[in-house]
């Protein structure tokens, strides 16, 4: 049977899937997709596969985070059906060579950094997933208080059912899922990192701390976006996409 070139629409579909896959990769410290942050500088799709170049706000961005994002990008792209060979390259980082070699060899974090890396990145990832959950919880509760004009004391036993639908709630449910908390309507909103409900008298402090977490996470995102724009001020902070694929 003669191989038939894919129609342009199918190739475009692949392109959209590749972009969507990279959009699932989150900067753990900023809790935002690397695609929104401008960290994906280019995507090249050809008959062999896909190559994505990543960049970061400084050459001194922590290598553990850099590795985490780059390896998550590899995993996300490999899940795209029919994508072919996946190559992810981190540019302009002081550990670019090390990280890129490690990714190409599937060496893992410890395998990439050798004796510098005592343990795998799961705990680091989890730390930031917990922070992201704390910040998302605060956004939901404060939005609810603002819209109802009530105080937190007037909302005893606040459950997920009480939260109005929308992006804040969606974000909270995703963060809860990430750290293994329930998302049933009757599940309490104000919980600690392990899902244990916060006692009523501890709620104000928990919310106050959650606010500091949110401000910290949001502020870091401002900082990193600003630095990235300064560092690449002669380039657009968008993703260059080239797609020459004719067949799968």
């Amino acid at each position, binding site marked *: 049977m003669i191989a038939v070139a894919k129609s342009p629409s199918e190739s475009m579909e692949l392109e959209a899937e590749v972009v969507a896959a990279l959009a699932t990769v989150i900067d753990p*410290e900023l809790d935002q997709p690397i695609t929104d942050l401008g960290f994906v500088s280019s995507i090249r799709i050809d008959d062999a596969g896909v190559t994505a170049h990543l960049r970061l*706000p*400084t*050459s*001194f*961005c*922590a*290598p*553990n985070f850099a590795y985490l994002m780059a390896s998550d990008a590899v995993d996300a792209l490999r899940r795209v059906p029919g994508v072919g060979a996946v190559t992810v390259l981190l540019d302009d980082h*002081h*550990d670019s060579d090390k990280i890129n070699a490690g990714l190409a060899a599937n060496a893992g974090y410890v395998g990439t*950094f050798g*004796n*510098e*890396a*005592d*343990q795998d*990145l799961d705990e*680091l990832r989890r730390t930031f997933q917990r*922070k992201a959950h704390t910040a998302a919880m605060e956004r939901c509760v404060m939005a609810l208080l603002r819209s109802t004009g009530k105080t937190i004391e007037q909302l005893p036993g606040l459950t997920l059912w009480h939260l109005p639908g929308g992006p804040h709630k969606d974000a909270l449910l995703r963060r809860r899922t990430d750290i293994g908390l329930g998302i049933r309507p009757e599940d309490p909103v104000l919980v600690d990192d392990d899902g244990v409900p916060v006692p009523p008298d501890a709620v104000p402090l928990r919310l*106050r*701390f959650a*606010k*500091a*977490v949110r*401000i*910290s996470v*949001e*502020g*870091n995102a*401002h*900082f990193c976006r*600003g*630095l990235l*724009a*300064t*560092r690449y001020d002669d380039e657009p902070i968008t993703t260059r996409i080239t797609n020459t694929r004719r067949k799968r």
Partner: protein
Amino acid sequence: MYEKNGEKYYICDAHIALWDARPENQRNIHGKQFIDCFYDYHKNLSPEEVVWDYDTYTYYGEQRLLKDLFEDGYVDHAIFQPAILSDFYKRGFGQTEDALALTRANPGKLTYNHAWDPRHEEAGLEQLRKDADRMGLKGVKLYTAEWNGDSRGWKLDSLWSRRYLEECLKLGIKNIHVHKGPTIRPLDRDAFDVADIDQVATDYTELNFIVEHVGLPRLEDFCWIATQEPNVYGGLAVAMPFIHSRPKYFAQIIGELLYWIGEDRILFSSDYALWTPKWLVEKFVDFEIPADLPEYAPLTIAQKKKILGLNAASLYGLDVPAELRLSMPEPAVAS
């Protein structure tokens, strides 16, 4: 001294440097990357009219420092907080001898803080004793993420670090400034993590731990620890310039710090030459909490005076002219 609307402010810039990052002093590519990263900070967060050209930024020398701080920048006293970075720069990034000479030539205006590294173990301890004597040290600046051969960082609560802290106690070096901020690579020896501050602040209550960059990018971890440890302070280096580019975020940082650690433990710093103090001082004195952040109380003039200089003066025993001190509160009138 800075004066605005009849109010006079004593200014102590608690974190400055005299650095040399010129290509001839760079040991390797990391030296270039490091100063490039600093320059991006400078360009990104400074008002356009005060941005330096790159070559000036890599080396500005003593005279420019004196002018930017004391002639133009309203600074009454400034404290050197050097990053040595000898793995990146041949003669070091911070210019120890030049800064020390400048301190001696300008009595009362400058304080020189030096650095130690516990990975130098016994030899470093001996060096610290000599340095303390020769340099008249009242403080040190520690860079826990500094590279040293195969090691890319250390913890304040490690065994050798504790021995150095004990030596500081003996030598009267009471102010321990610690870089806990953005950039410079930690690996899983996570140098951003402020947990080691918690350990040593509890164990060495006679030392003051000044967390530079208020723990950014982990402000909340810093606040949580500092709330519980009365000898932990927050240095505003790197947080200050947001006053221009992200005033709302700056207001949130200040608001959170005032809530968690209070007005007596926050120290102004320009982080010169990352930023020059002149515009930071002017903007801070004019700064008001935006109307859309009603959860924070307005900043008072007394709070601004403490943050801009009086708090650091108290830590370093600086002689603040009487007219620049806070007047005692009026006694309550008995009715």
